[in-house]
């Protein structure tokens, strides 16, 4: 007799388990996790079927032959649903299952006030909800106002939720703790609190939350933010800022006097007027804008490593492109797949890319030392008319174009081409690409297409 596979029952158990977790721990972002980790379902399923087959084999007979039509349909459906969920999640759509719409939302006002005394730090513990913090020079109190939203089936349940989750402001040593006690909610419904807080500007801020945005402004003290999911907006912060986020759609910091240390996954970053050092470590899929950073900037992601000594100008970056203007070197950029365009840089530039075109236009003299290595993509170097430099450029498969005339010698050999020579006195410029045109042009001249005769 043909034995039935274990896969069906185990799938039912898993689905039941997922619903159970969701009901018991609504704070776990289960659907976001599923959107991320669903491929492991396929792996587990395949492993299970493999084990069944091997077990049958060791017992002497193989009865099952491959997947049935229903199973294949289900697999295709899971792939389709999982992929759509992942893509939607990545673009900022978050899944709230339909049954969460049951029940009503009940609103309550929240407020509290307490003198900060000699405390130097405010710690916010607000699991869900947005937090807007403003520093004021003329106050000595911590003042909180806001709104609590409780999801419940009826007013009684909502009231019970409200009573068991009071806002507390507690002074502990040199810190003041502001907590919303959302974890004490005895009912199943979600609670979220949007708070507006005024604190003495001299204080520093620390936050811990799961879900909700932070908007912090006018502080002399530092900022230390931790959240699983948050958008962050910082402006006029007088000391160091440390931001650790599980996920974000936007992190913006403007007028920051200290260092910025940003870690996490997310989409967009906007930085402007940062007096301290900037360190960013994470995966960001949106558009990144850095403007006017006075000290070293270091951006590190799985695909890109960028260091500049300081940035009087700006750098814009997204998944496929990096443009920069007015960078103080040494500039170091290693990237996998980006078109790179940099104008005006000093000291030295070291650039390494796997795929993508490179366009460099240093317009100030003396020139910076330049070293570019590309596996595939054209390299276009535009130099001022009077620039002095020593050039070694080579392409394994492509054309070489030279605007500087006889001082630069061109050699071609099969598919490869090279340019070599010195113009006046100056730093070394070293350009190498595996595939693509290399051109060295004079500023102001028209974009030089390779001669048709050479093709």
């Amino acid at each position, binding site marked *: 007799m043909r034995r039935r596979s274990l896969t069906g029952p185990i799938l039912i158990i898993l689905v039941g388990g997922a619903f159970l977790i969701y009901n018991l721990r609504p704070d776990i972002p289960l659907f976001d996790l599923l959107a991320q*980790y669903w*491929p492991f379902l*396929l792996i587990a399923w395949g492993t299970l079927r*493999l084990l069944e087959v091997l077990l049958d*084999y060791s017992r002497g007979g*193989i009865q099952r032959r491959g997947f049935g039509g229903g199973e294949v349909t289900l697999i295709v459906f899971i792939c389709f649903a999982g992929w759509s969920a992942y893509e939607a999640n990545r673009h900022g759509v978050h899944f709230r299952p339909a049954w969460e719409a049951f029940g009503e939302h009940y609103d309550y006002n929240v407020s509290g006030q307490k003198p900060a005394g000699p405390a130097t730090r405010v710690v916010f513990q607000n699991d869900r909800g947005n937090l807007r913090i403003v520093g004021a020079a003329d106050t000595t109190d911590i003042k909180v106002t806001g709104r609590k939203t409780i999801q419940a089936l009826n007013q009684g349940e909502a009231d019970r939720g409200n009573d068991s989750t009071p806002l507390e402001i507690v002074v502990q040593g040199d810190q003041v703790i502001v907590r919303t006690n959302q974890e004490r909610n005895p009912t199943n419904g979600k609670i979220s609190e949007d708070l507006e807080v005024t604190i003495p500007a001299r204080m520093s801020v620390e936050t811990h939350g799961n879900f909700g945005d932070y908007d912090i402004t006018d502080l002399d003290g530092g900022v230390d933010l931790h959240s699983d999911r948050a958008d962050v907006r910082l402006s006029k912060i007088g000391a160091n800022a440390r931001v650790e986020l599980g996920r974000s759609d936007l992190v913006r910091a403007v007028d920051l006097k200290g260092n910025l240390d940003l870690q996490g996954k997310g989409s967009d970053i906007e930085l402007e007027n940062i007096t301290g050092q900037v360190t960013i470590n994470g995966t960001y899929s949106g558009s990144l804008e850095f403007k006017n950073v006075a000290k070293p900037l270091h951006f590190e992601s799985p695909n890109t490593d960028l260091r500049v000594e300081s940035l009087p100008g700006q750098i814009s970056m997204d998944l496929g492109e990096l443009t920069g203007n007015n960078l103080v070197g040494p500039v170091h950029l290693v990237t996998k797949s980006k078109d790179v365009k940099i104008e005006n840089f000093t000291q030295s530039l070291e650039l390494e890319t796997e795929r993508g075109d490179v366009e460099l236009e240093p317009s100030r003299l003396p020139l910076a030392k330049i070293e570019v290595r590309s596996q595939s993509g054209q390299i276009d170097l535009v130099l001022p008319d009077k620039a002095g430099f020593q050039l070694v450029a080579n392409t394994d498969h492509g054309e070489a174009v030279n605007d500087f005339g006889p001082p630069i010698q061109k050699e071609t050999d099969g598919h490869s081409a090279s340019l070599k020579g010195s113009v006046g006195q100056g730093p070394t410029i070293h350009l190498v690409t595996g595939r693509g045109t290399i051109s060295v042009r004079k500023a102001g001249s028209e974009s030089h297409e390779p001669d048709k005769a050479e093709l």
Partner: protein
Amino acid sequence: MNAREANLVCAIRGPITLITLGVLFAADHLTPYSFQQTWPVLLIVFGLLSLLGRSARPERTDGRAPGAPQ
């Protein structure tokens, strides 16, 4: 190789493909390697499984395709 092993190779084909698919999707979501880059691995796995199936299958002696109804 005997018919029993040929059956085994045939039976593990589905699960192995499914695991590969899962690993590629997981790599897409959790590592920089996207599915657009790694899909050829599926072809390679298909190819390897067919090779394995061919070496496990009994030699054709009667002119009929192996596995065809007797």
